[in-house]
Each structure stands twice: as structure tokens, then as C-alpha cells.
């Protein structure tokens, strides 16, 4: 598709591709609501000019749904009451997905640090941490995709 450089990656995801999971927050990289994985890395889509994404690979929350089946990480979020208003959730999940694949130290401290760029005003982060730790167990036991 053709994009204009004054559109951000977030604009393209939402306005052009109608991807609902990515949320428009502060648009200044401070809240993390717009986090997606670009070439495997968590980024704030609001800070990227759309042409900069050319040729890249993007993963959004929709990619963790396969034929109506939820990825174990999403199930962990639901089962651990990690979702309240849901606005931070997609960004939080994408960051969590990255952490689950890349963190070597799975202490609470380390997970919390990994989440520092995803603000949440509703949950106090505690159930989000629980969900991520539960997902880690699933991953370690092999029930992962």
C-alpha cells in the first residue's frame, strides 16, 4: 500500500488497516498503549513514520488469535483478571509476549522492568504480573505456539 510520511505507523494500522487492537494513547511514546512487535521488537507505533516500516514484519494482538483460538498468553491474561478497562491490554500483551521469548531472568523485578513502558491506570500491574508468570509456566511445559 502507499503511505504518506506524515502518517505514523499507528495511523496506518488504525486508519488504513482498521486494526482495532492497537490503541491510540498519548502519541508521544510515554504510555505504550500503541505497542506492537516490529521485526520482533516491541515498539511504540506512534513514534514511527509509516514509510519506516516498509519491508518489516509486524505482529499485533490479532496475530495471537488463530481461528478463534487464543494464544496461551491471552488465556493467562483472562484467567488472572489482568484486564480491566482493556485499553493498555494489547500493548501490554505484545510487550509480555516479547519478554516471554527474551527475558533470561524471570524475577518479578525483571518482568516489572520490562513492562516499564506500558502504563496501566486500572490494575496496579499485579494481576498482569501473575498472568505473565502463569504464561511462563505454560511455555516451559511446552503448551505454547
Amino acid at each position, binding site marked *: 500500500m502507499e503511505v504518506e510520511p506524515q502518517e505514523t505507523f499507528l495511523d496506518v494500522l488504525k486508519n488504513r488497516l482498521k486494526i482495532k487492537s492497537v490503541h491510540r494513547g498519548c502519541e508521544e511514546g510515554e*504510555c505504550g498503549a500503541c505497542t506492537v512487535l516490529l521485526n520482533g521488537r516491541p515498539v511504540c507505533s506512534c513514534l514511527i513514520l509509516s514509510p519506516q516500516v516498509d519491508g518489516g514484519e509486524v505482529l499485533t494482538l490479532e496475530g495471537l488469535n488463530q481461528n478463534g483460538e487464543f494464544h496461551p498468553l491471552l488465556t493467562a491474561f483472562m484467567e488472572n483478571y489482568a484486564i480491566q478497562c482493556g485499553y493498555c491490554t494489547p500493548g501490554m500483551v505484545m510487550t509480555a509476549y516479547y519478554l516471554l521469548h527474551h527475558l533470561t531472568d524471570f524475577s518479578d523485578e525483571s518482568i*516489572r522492568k520490562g513492562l516499564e513502558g506500558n502504563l496501566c491506570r486500572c490494575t496496579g500491574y499485579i494481576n498482569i504480573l501473575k498472568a505473565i508468570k502463569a504464561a511462563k509456566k505454560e511455555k516451559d511445559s511446552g503448551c505454547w505456539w
Partner: protein
Amino acid sequence: MITRERRILSGKGRFIDDLELPSMVHCVFIGSPYAHARIRKMDVSKALKNPGVLTVITGEELRQHTAPLPATSDFSGRPGWHWRAPEIYPLAVGKVRFHGEPVAAIVAETPRQALEAAGGIEIEYDPLPPVMDAVSAMEKNGPLVYEEWGDNVQLHTVFNFGDVERAFREADRVLKFPWHENRTSGFPLEARGCLSMYEPMTETLHTWGSYQCPFRAQHYISHVLRLPQTSVRVTASDIGGGFGNKINIWKYTVVCLAAMLTGRPVKWHESTREFFLTGPHQRDVVWDSEVAIKNDGRVLGIKARFIQDLGVEISNRDYSAPSIQAACSSVPNAYRLQGLKVEAYGIVTNKSFYGAYRGFGKDKGAKFMERIMDLVSRECNLNPAELRLKNFIQPQEFPYKQISGLVYDSGNYPAVLQEALKAAEVDSWKAKQEELRKEGKHIGIGMAFVVEPAGIAAPNARFSGLVQARVRVTPDGLVEIYSDRTEIGQGAEMTNTLVVSQILGAKPEDIVVKPVTSDIIGMGPISSRGAVYSVSALARAAKGLKEIIVKYASAFFKDRPENIRLENGAIYSSKNPENRLTYKELADRMYFRPGARGLPQEMQLNHETLLDVSASWFSPNSAENPTSTYTTFSSSADIAVVEVDTETGATRILKYVHVHDAGKIISREIVDGQIYGGIVQGIGEALSEELIYNEQGELSSGSYADFVMPTAVDAPDIVIKHLETPSPYTELGTKGMGESPIIGSKAVIISAIEDALSPFHILITEAPATREKVRRWIRHSTAG
């Protein structure tokens, strides 16, 4: 039915940013760069010629075609109250009074075109000196926010509860205590917004968006646009957080007007910066007080002067004027006070308006009182727990008529506090504190006890009404819930589903919580009213529906009503379980075939044929006790251990315990989630959040970069325990509890810091306790 959580995780959210209609256009607000100025000239003619622009609305148009924003509270005529409400519009008319105040709304095909047209608006201002704090705004001959007022006092009254003179006569000592809370607010991650459309075929203005209270919004919009309420329909979309910050809908009315003027659907989604600048601000109160005590620690009475910094007003854009009463009447908190006298002022300044934020007003009195408890404990050399136990209202005294006129329904404060002390292992932390002090390390143990009045129904205020709930079985056997309890992340849908599921035996996946609209009467999820009003009305409606179902089933099965069971999506007879119907079969018979094979004749003749029950609910507490503006009173104890780095002033939380008595709990997980979230918000208020205006009156902390909220690293682990003393007043014994976590947490963190710094003899009289401030207090102390 798919739950909201599943829907959002499937990428099928319906937040305002996701909403779209064909031929939709966009509205953008532009605002004043000055805190205080006269508008000398406004010429939008160039902007109108910009590509894509449909119209530009200014204050002058609003003045001609719409009603001024209604005063949502009215204290005029109330004896002893000095009260005024200004005549104002969502867009400035003649004068701007706060940084960012909207001066024009541009409607264009795309948001970019709207923003680009802003350059074509010619506005000239004559700046005026701004008045940026409430105390100096009270001085004579200073700048006036509303010249016609002659001063900056919007509200003034004296609350005189109990016998304060006697309290002071009987006192052994009188302590002084000043206390100032920072200006802050919620700022959920999703800012405000709506999509409005006028539908000519039904002559209805439809609006969808982040409306925390659709029914009240309908009233407000129809008043402003001068439409009958029947022509306005408000629907709450998915809402990305509320906390009270989305009750105000004054900007939304301009979007609705734009929809009517242009004949196109108009969408507005503000930026986070606009939310900070033009959103509802809260807290920002100053108390000056004298506290009359006995040497044994009994607190007899308090005299105080209370000043609330209202920003431009507390009366029209939001529904917050009664928060001053709530603040003063919540001072007695959990204690047996003999007398309380507060001279209360609501002062206008050149800042954004005073709105609603979790706590509303009752948070302030409780925090103030808990600070006083810390002071008394130190002055009388009493253990803070012993001191509270001594002053508590005792379990056998409920319902307790507090001197404020509020009737506390039930509770067991000593048990809640004891449970917290046990869970927090206070004694072992105290021993550690001694040891660490020898090493020059400073930990502190803080305590706060909060009674949360919930379910407000204040006189003079336009949110004090009843609520309605409706439960209906669809022809294909699903159960629909219609409630006023808008989902803002507090678990309304989940708990509503549980309530109905428990009463009707329907399976949760067969229950549909319909989006909340203005069709259902109700004040919305404010003042923790969800668990009080909305749940009670819903329970009544569900129970009413159950009665009809049982009546039908007993006639159909030819069995006694006592034998009819509703369980797991089926209705059956316990005597003969083969006699069973699913909800689908039941609905099929009643709606389509009530005759020969279906409904008993008696029911047909009595027209009792609808599986559709609407019920209302109002507070029996307020009905029985007219001065009791709240219905239920949950209670909580917070104990926190912190370490203060005395060189940097930084505070680290080592342990946090919260014990809560929220009456009958429907879902433990939902309640815990509310507690975790509220506590972390309160921690943010205690340590770092502040809306800071500079000398020119500009908001300098108007974004997440400078309004410092807790990240996942700043939030502590939290231990929660529950007690349940049900409310005698609500249908299921539930109590509102959503606000106490944010109240106790702010107080307990301050309390803990103060305890950590006790070698320095510092009395903390303000929040937030930022790193810089804590360091300054230490350096200025005698021991620093």
C-alpha cells in the same frame, strides 16, 4: 456470549477510536494559550475556506443557538450557603479563563485538515494577570475570574456538626494541623471522545462514546441543545478507563451540535495533552485546623478552615459541587467525634475545572483525619493502632448516626484493623526499624483506616436519583441485562452477569450485558454506586423475573413453587427432575405459544406473560435518614512499610497490606483488582503526581512525561485480606468499595514516610512527598 475481555483480546474492541460511520467527519478543538485574557477579536473566515472544512464553531454561535451549560448542583436558597454558578459555554465567550480553554471547534473531513485550518483562525487576546492559587485568590483587589462576582468565592458555608464548643471546653490539649493535598486527577489512558450523528428519519441525535453516565449525559445534552430528551440517545462505547473523569461531557455537546449543523456524523477523540489541560482536576485542598484532644488520646473535636481550589468552576462542566460537603462530612471517618466545625470555601482560579475523580470529596476528610491520628499518636505517645481502637465506633453501635448526619450501616472496625496488624507483622517490622536506625537506614511503618461512604444521593445535586435495571429473556433463550452501570473497567459486566446468573441459574455464557444507554434510568457508576444501587436494582429485577418463572414452572409442571429449581440454564422440579425446561424452551412457550401447551390460564388472564422485568432502586438508608446522603459504608485498613533514602528523598515500598470489609462480595477477583488499581493510584498521588501551573498560568505538567504516574516498577506487591459485614440496606448486602483503596493508600504512604523520618521530627503537612521535598524537609529539620 463473548465476554468483553474476549472481544478486546480478539481485536474487536469498540473504543471511540475504533468507531466509524460512513461519511464521518472530524472535530478538533483549539484552545487558549493564555490562562486569563479577554478575547479582543475572533475571525474564522479564513479557516472556513480551508480545504475540507465544513464549519467552525465559536462561543458566539453557542451563545446564540444553545443554552449555557447547566449548573448541575444548586445550593442557592440553602440557608447558610453562599453559592454562585457562572453562565458559561463550552467555548469561551468574551474571555478565556484557563490555559487551553477551548475557543473554537473546527469540523473537517479529516483531523489533519481540521488542525491545518486552525492556522486560519485569527484571534487576538488582551492578556490579564492570572490568579493561580486559591489562597491568594481570596485576597481583595486581586484578579477576578468572573468580574461580575466581585470576588473569587464560588461557594462558602460553615458545617457545624455535633457540639464542637463543648469538645474544646473539655479538651486537655489543642493541637494545630495544616494539610495540603496536591492537584491531580485520573487521566486514564484513553482520553475523552464521542461520535455523534443526527438521524433524520427518527429525528434522533445519536451519540456513542466514552460516556461514563449515558442517562445523565442525555439530560445534559438535551438541555444544552434545547432538544426534548426523547430525541437524544446516548450509548457508551467501550471505555478505556473512567475513574470519574468521563462524567463531564461539556465538550461532547459541541460535537453533538456539529453533527446537527453539518448533517454528517462527527467524531472527536481528544489528545492526551488536551485531556490534561481541559480535563477534570481534583484534590487541591488546604486545611487549617485545631484539634481538641484528651491526654488519653481521645479526639473530641476539630475546628477547621477548608479551602478547595476549584479552577474555573465546580458547577457546570461536571457534577462536583457536593464534593465540598462530602469532604467535610467525611472528616469524622471511623471515629466517635463529639464536634466538628468547618468553614469551607470553594475558590475559583485560572485552572481547569473541578471535576470528579475516584474519591470525589469523601476521600479528603478521611485522609485529613488519618493525618491527625498520626499527629495525636505522636503527641500523646500512643501506639497508632491503640489510638484508633480507642476512638473507633464499636461494632455494636451500628447503624451509627455520625455527627455529620450520615448513618453508617454496618462494620467491624477493630476486626479489620487487627487483621491488618497481624498480616503486616508490625511488631517484627518495628524491631527491624530499631536495628536499621543504628545503621543509619530509615524505614517507617504507616497506618491508615478509612471508612468509605458509597452510593451518593446528595440533595441539591443532579446525580442523586434512583436507578433502574431490566432483565429480559430473549425469544431464543438468552438473558439480557440492561443496567445503568457503565463498564469502565471495574468489572460491571462480569459482576452483573454473576448476580443474574446466581439468581436465575442461567449460564454466564447465555447472559448478555447490553451496552449501557440512556434508555435506562440511572446515575451511572459514580460514588461506587455500582455495588449499591445498580446491583440492588438488578437483583430486584432478576428476583422479580425469577418469581414469574417459578410461577409458570410450578403451574406447568403441576408442582409446588418451593420445588422449582433454577440451575445451570435449566428450570426443573426437585421432586421430579425429568420435569425440566431450558430457558429457550421457556421463552418459546411464553412468547409464541402461550395457549394450550403453555401458560396456565390464570397467568394468561392476569397478563403475567412477559419474561421481562424492570425494577428500580433507591437507598433505604437515605429514605429513612434524610441527612444520610450515602447508603453503605465499607471500611479498610492499610499498613505499609517504606524505606526512605534520606540522601535522595526517595521512598521505596517494602511491604503493603490492605484489609477490606466491603460487605457481601460478589467476585473476590474483581474486588481485588479494584483494590490493586486504587492503591497504586493513591501511591502515585502520594509520591509524585501533580498538576503544576507556572507563574504565567500555563500547565507545565500536562503530559505523561511530566505528570509522573507509577510504572510497573513503582508499584509494590500488595497483600489483601477480606472481612464481610453485609449492608442491611442493599438488596444483596453488597457495599460500594471502589474508592477506599485510593484514599487509604495516599494516607498510609505519607504516614509511613513520616514514621521513617521520626528521628528528624518532621510533620508532613502536604502531598505529594516527592523526592525533592522529602530531602528538603530532612535538610531543614533540626536534626538534618
